[in-house]
């Protein structure tokens, strides 16, 4: 019994010894290196949300040992003895950045070479006072052309590394048979009480979640060009504006863009979710209307439009002619007033004309305060997600001044984007890492309408960005997590779709 008590008394002392022996001691004696350290992702000179997950990174330098110190003016610095892959403890990270809003975060990287410690120049990042919406929803899919196999819509908690599938296409259960495609998830007004996504092929349809009820509707109408495509949920009413697009795909023999996708015809429609009724907004062959989006007050519908070629009687000839002139197809930005009582539209009004931009515009999104209109500008066409020339722009709707988000843009395609509900953060798709695989980048958009240098969505292991052979499509920010369950959506997705009401 005595010896047992001895062990009991020794245990805390032993634990204390182990803890203190594991504590990282700050390096005091070192030489300072001249050149900055290369880290991946590039988390240098960026602005961070105060609620973001740790910005784990890899040190791209040689050394026998590494140590990292993360500090700010308030709170305890984080000291890490590490290998090349730096994993920051989440609790310590949160404690540190939450105490230092509107302040600078310093990262010091130490490397030991030939028994001597060196320190790279300090990396300084800014912690913004504004939080980013907690959840980011995206689709993970190979950026292929015609085929897909495994894909799904996932939701990531930006305050941690937790990623949950909303639905994957494995519900069709038979991995050998062609599996379904899903796309275009959309939330109403940054919440998750209402959201939708499309299912393509097989038992296709559009799945609507509306405050606890699920519906799968076949959005194909005989008079429409196609089933519903790009969605925009009205900010307060149970209405969704969609585009309907007749799309064609072709391939470049000698052009790094590899693929070209264009609409030969496109229109806009309005869908009343309650009544299951689809009504046309535009039905014209001479104009290609697409990418609808609502103003935050719901009084305007913004969209992109381009002049179509004269209609040929033979559709194949029309398509061939479109491809001959594909670099000449350019979209400008318009809006149309919407009466929320009668659900009727007024006359269109052009916001940005292409001759001002010498570019083609896509994916318009109005900031939550209604002041800025964010869009993608590319050299031509509608498929900006593949165009290397694609860049993000904003128009100040008060002054009508247009400017590129220079600090956020890159040489590769920067395209699909969404605002956070406070209007201070933009999450967007970019192919800047390798030209093919889209990753989500985040930029701070300050009150003066200027965006900061964008940073890559933090991952638990930064190498996932290199090893993952899927693209992050359609990044959509939301304040809350989806309220659906995987199994319930799986059940709904496997059902036959209800027809539209005529």
């Amino acid at each position: 019994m005595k010896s047992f008590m001895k062990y009991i008394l020794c245990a805390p002392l032993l634990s204390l010894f182990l803890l203190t022996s594991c504590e990282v001691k700050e390096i005091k004696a070192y030489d300072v290196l001249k050149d900055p350290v290369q880290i991946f992702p590039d988390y240098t000179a960026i602005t961070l949300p105060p609620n973001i997950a740790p910005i784990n990174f890899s040190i791209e330098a040689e050394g026998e040992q590494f140590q990292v110190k993360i500090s700010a003016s308030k709170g305890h610095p984080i000291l890490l003895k590490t290998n090349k892959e730096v994993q920051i403890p989440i609790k310590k990270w949160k404690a540190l950045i939450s105490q230092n809003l509107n302040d600078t975060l310093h990262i010091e990287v130490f490397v030991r070479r030939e028994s001597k410690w060196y320190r790279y120049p300090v990396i300084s990042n800014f912690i913004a006072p504004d939080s980013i919406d907690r959840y980011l929803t995206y689709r993970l899919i190979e950026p292929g052309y015609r085929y897909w196999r495994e894909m799904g819509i996932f939701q990531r908690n930006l305050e941690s590394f937790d990623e949950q599938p909303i639905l994957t296409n494995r519900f069709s259960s038979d991995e050998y048979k062609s599996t379904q495609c899903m796309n275009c998830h959309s939330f109403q007004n940054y919440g998750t009480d209402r959201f939708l996504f499309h299912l393509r092929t097989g038992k296709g349809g559009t799945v609507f979640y509306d405050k606890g009820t699920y519906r799968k509707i076949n959005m194909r109408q005989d008079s429409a060009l196609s089933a519903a495509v790009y969605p925009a949920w009205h900010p307060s009413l149970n209405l969704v504006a969609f585009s309907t697009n007749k799309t064609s795909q072709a391939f470049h023999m000698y052009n790094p863009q590899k693929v070209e996708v264009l609409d030969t015809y496109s229109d806009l429609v309005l869908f009343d979710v309650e009544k299951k009724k689809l009504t046309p907004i535009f039905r014209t062959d001479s104009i290609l209307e697409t990418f609808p989006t609502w103003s935050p007050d719901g009084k305007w519908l913004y969209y992109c439009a381009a002049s179509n070629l004269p209609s040929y009687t033979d559709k194949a000839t029309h398509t061939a002619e479109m491809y001959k002139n594909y670099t000449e197809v350019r979209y400008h930005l318009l809006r149309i007033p919407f009466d929320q009582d009668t659900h009727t539209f007024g006359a269109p009004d052009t916001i940005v004309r292409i001759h001002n931009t010498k570019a083609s515009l896509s994916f318009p999104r109005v900031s939550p305060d209604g002041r800025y209109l964010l869009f993608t500008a590319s050299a031509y066409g509608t498929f900006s997600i593949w165009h290397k020339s694609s860049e993000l722009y904003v128009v100040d709707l008060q002054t009508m001044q247009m400017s590129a988000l220079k600090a956020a843009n890159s040489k590769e395609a920067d395209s699909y984007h969404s605002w956070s509900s406070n209007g201070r953060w933009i999450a967007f798709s970019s192919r800047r890492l390798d030209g093919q695989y889209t990753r989500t980048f985040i930029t701070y958009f300050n009150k003066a309408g200027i965006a900061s240098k964008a940073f890559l969505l933090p991952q638990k292991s930064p190498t996932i960005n290199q090893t993952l052979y899927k693209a992050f499509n359609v990044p959509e920010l939301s304040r809350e997590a989806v309220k659906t369950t995987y199994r319930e959506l799986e059940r709904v997705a496997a059902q036959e779709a209800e027809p539209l009401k005529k």
Partner: protein
Amino acid sequence: MDRQHKKPDAAIHPLQPKKKRSALTAVLFVTVCTLYLILFRSSYLQMTAQLSLFLNERSFFESYLQRPGGLLHYGGQFFSQFLLIPWLGALLCALLLLTLAILVRTMHLFHSKNELLSYIPPLLLLGSVSNMGEMLYVNVNGGYFFSTILGWILVAALYSLTSRFKPKGIGCEMLSAIGAGLLLWVGGIYGIIAFLFLIFRVVRQGDATDRIYSLSVYLISLAVFLFAGYLFLYPNAPFSSLWMAHLKQYPFLLGKFPLIFEWSLTAYMALAVLLSSRLSRVALPHRLGYVLLAIVFLAVGVVSRQGQTANTRCRMLQLAENEEWAKLLSDANRPGASIPLIAVALAKENRLLNNLFGYVQPTSKNILFETPNEQLSIVNIQVLRNLGLYYYAYNLAYENMVFRAPSISSFHQLGELSLINNETELAKKYLTTLSHAWLWKKEATSWLQLADSPALLDTKLSSLRQLQPRNNYIGSFYSGFESMVIYNYAVSQRNPMSLQYAVAALLLQKRIQELPNWMQSIQETYHQSIPLHVQEALALKAGLDPAYVLPDGWVDARVNRELQEFLTLYTSAKGPEAAMILTKQYNQTYWYYYMFASVSSGKDENASYDQR
């Protein structure tokens, strides 16, 4: 002292005749299986390795853990990588099959004198894995070659191990059921097979009360493991995938013969388990055992021709990758030879327009490119690559990776093509992944080093880059490649293959009216010696169109004379018998193709030029 006596005794004591025979049978079995695979399936094994993927990475392992049956799949991928070295892969396969034979023997299904019958299941498995044929290319079930062997080994091991539990009782049955349940998670359908075999064992043993208890244990366990998997272990997997994983029910994916072999194996084992109490009392003559084995082995090797043709096709693909064109042409008359690869080899030797129909049946479709599903053809990637159409080759290789799941072959192709296309960062992504595959590390690392030295890379790839077109063309290759290669000539005249392919495509589309427009280019390339098939086509055009005057020197008198003889025979024997009569003498001519082959227009509706 006694021990000292015993040891040398044991060492020099000859093997019991039965043990000696067992050992000899095992050695013979391993030798025959290994030789069979090395001699007849060598290229097939290497291609299987290239179409599978095993990465020495934690995230790779975790991705398999997330799906029902994933661990078995992972095991299959692990062993499949060794098939790249055919003798090693063949030996591994033979040893695993021997393991299965030993385990089947320890299941005590047969009379102790009938141990040869335990070699039948592994032989049937050999028949299945070595005869996938064309289905080898449908790689959604990568690692199949070994995962199926491992699955059966686990079933036999579980049965054999649980047969040894003594005394029998409900506890033993519970342990067996837990084993089968775990196997359900690890190996999907093999868990179900294990449950079935254990239930069969219960059915034939014990008294009625024990049987009811035991059956309840198995059925409850099956339900528990299925629902626990569905609710907790694989919360995003469909219910059916828990038991369907590794179930190979589709002939279009696996091929007819492999399925027959595997179904036969399942039936054989199920019957043996059900009837084991009777079978274990019957001692067959030893010779009969050998005869049975020989019959199954013959069925494996002879009945299934799929495997042989696939082996030829794989060999041709390897020869094309290594640019061994003469060797490739020497295989051209073997069954399974790839006609589009023969066409590439002919074009490389500048003989395409002279020998286009020399190696193929003139009515054969898919001469320049493979169809159907041409967009998923591995052969087409090679053809496009050799034509210098690297962006198209990349697109096809990418579609392959998406549709069939990533493989060594896809990372290798995409990495190399990205380097040629000057997309270094993208190339590094593929090559870094490739460097995590043990047997490819060296090659991938050397490419990665090259990617970091642009000057060295330019030097290495300059000859390949010279084959690229100079201008862009935009079109949908899903509507056919033939039109594309005709346009390709207009935009890639630096490539010596492009003219041959463009003219060949014109001939194959029977567009002989357009041929005179191409004669300037043909004459500039071939000078006085106009290629034979071009002469044949021109002579035919003149023969069919009396208004057309054939310029002097374009067609030899001999060709004109032979055409007259052909046309005389053709007009005298019209109808279905004409082809039969003319086959022997004229099946290597363009005329025969023109008269008897059916072709589509092949016009690309989205075609247009884009001057970069």
